[in-house]
């Protein structure tokens, strides 16, 4: 069952990867997976991880990456802001998701047990605290992601020479989507949890909560993918 699910996920990832990356090959030096579209007009590229200059050839569908040079004087920024900034959203957002999930569980339990902020001391005391902390974490995560985006962009221009690597294009797209979805969750959060817990009184309330949690899930997925891709770009396999 688990292996079937993993196969399904793997298949989905491969379809997605094929769309973004096209055909891929591995850097023969650092084993980083690179896209055929990463090459310049001369069919060359600089490996973003190990800096070797690769001349890419294809014969019978097999890629033959030939290394003829190494870019040893790569610009190294004095302060590496992006790796530090990137851990703020990655570190805080999962806790915001946990907080929102816990509030949802409280709301569902309260709905069946007849417990509300008005009639239960636990709900009255703790749900506003959890709600505020969740919103704060969410807001910091989203706002700091803008900083991460900016530092990442500067890093790309300086360290990677602004070369159009597919992996960086993917990061830029995902970061943009995360920023938009993240802002939506910050806006929707007070609406969904206006009473401290989720109100299921009207269909609009339910719909808003559903949309909010879909956005939260999607944002978490984006963030995890961004972290994974970023880590891969820095550390390789």
């Amino acid at each position: 069952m688990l292996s079937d699910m993993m196969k399904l996920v793997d298949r989905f990832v491969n379809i997605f990867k094929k769309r973004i990356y096209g055909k891929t090959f591995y850097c023969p030096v650092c084993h980083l997976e690179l896209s055929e579209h990463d090459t310049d007009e001369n069919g060359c590229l600089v490996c973003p991880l190990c800096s070797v200059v690769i001349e890419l050839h294809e014969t019978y569908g097999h890629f033959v990456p030939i290394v003829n040079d190494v870019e040893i004087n790569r610009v190294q920024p004095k302060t590496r802001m992006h790796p530090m900034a990137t851990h703020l959203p990655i570190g805080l957002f999962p806790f915001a998701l946990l907080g929102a999930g816990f509030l949802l569980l409280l709301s569902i339990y309260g709905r069946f047990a007849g417990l509300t902020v008005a009639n239960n001391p636990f709900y009255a005391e703790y749900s506003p605290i959890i709600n505020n902390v969740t919103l704060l974490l969410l807001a910091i995560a989203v706002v700091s992601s803008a900083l991460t985006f900016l530092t990442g962009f500067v890093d790309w221009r300086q360290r990677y020479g602004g070369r159009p690597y597919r992996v960086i294009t993917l990061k830029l797209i995902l970061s943009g989507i995360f920023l938009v979805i993240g802002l939506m969750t910050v806006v929707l959060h007070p609406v969904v949890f206006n009473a401290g817990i989720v109100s299921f009184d009207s269909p609009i309330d339910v719909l808003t909560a559903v949309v909010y949690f879909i956005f939260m899930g999607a944002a978490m997925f984006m963030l995890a993918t961004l972290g994974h891709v970023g880590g891969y770009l820095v550390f390789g396999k």
Partner: protein
Amino acid sequence: MEFSLTKKQQDYVEKARAFTKEWVSPNATKYDRSGEFPKDICQEAFNLGFMNPHVPKEYGGKEQRVLEHCLIMEEICTGCSGIGTALGSNGLSQYPVIFAGNDFQKKKFLEPMTQELMFSAYCVTEPEAGSDVSRIKTTAKKVGNDYVINGVKWWITCGSVASWYFVLARVGDKATGFVVPADTDGIIRGVKEHNLGQHASNTVRVTFEDVKVPEAYRLGEEGDGFKIAMKTFDHTRPGIASGSNGITKAALNIALTYARGRRTFDKKLISYQGVSFKLAEIVTKLDAARYMTYLSADMFDEKKDNARQAAQAKWYAAEVAMSATVECCQILGGYGYTNEMPAEKLMRDAKIYQIYEGASEIQKMIIVGKLMRTREVH
């Protein structure tokens, strides 16, 4: 004497080449590393008509000539011979049915294979009987109208995905061939073997424990099995030689591409005779191996005895593939030794061609056996 391909053959080659570049080569590393069976690629090959090429027309097949099959296999194996083996091995088990099966057997076992993607496997090799097939220990005892098969078959290609097996077993002291549906009680499929190369090919052990097979599933008469099993090779060995030629072609292309692009001591690698002469030797040997392969295939298609020519092609093409891949790795230097380049895989894949479907030494024995019955070689 005609040395050019017909329009139809050229079309086959171009179609197979496009399929190889689109499906086989880009996935070669993936399946080599995972060891998964490439069912999705086989499905695509089936849709394009590259599978089961020899099945007669009256059973839904295309009854393709062996020569055309060889041209296709050479292209596909240039991408990955493991995938080539996975999608080409049906022929090995189908041919005994084509050659010795009756109408009922052909309808039951061949026809469905032309309608949907299915696999079959050739179960002859045993742990104690490889090249020396006559040593097989698997028995088939006649019980009423059935035969009860007991024994272990070893290194069975497509063994765990097959829908039926061609099984060679002893009835008393007579080697006899049977077609055994894979869902018959008593068949135990082993785990995939971790071989040196051709990881995409599914090689397993298949155990038969009191497997009951109706008499109607026996091929030919009792005692015909050895002849059927051996005759099959006259048909399949040109295809195997084409697989070797595909590997040689891949090695040549990769080595050539690398030698043209890589610089050492301020010169292109290809400008050194030590490198360029290797390429000259590979391409010459490849052409020789190809002509031998095409000749053996054409002789089979013309219903001539091709046993010697098929053995020569299989042996020589395998030797050329092995030496070409070793030289390819040598030309690539350290990069030929890393698994991020396609060269080392070719070397691992090539080795099996000197072993399966009769080791190189067996091929030489066949050639000498034929020579001994020849008054003069013209």
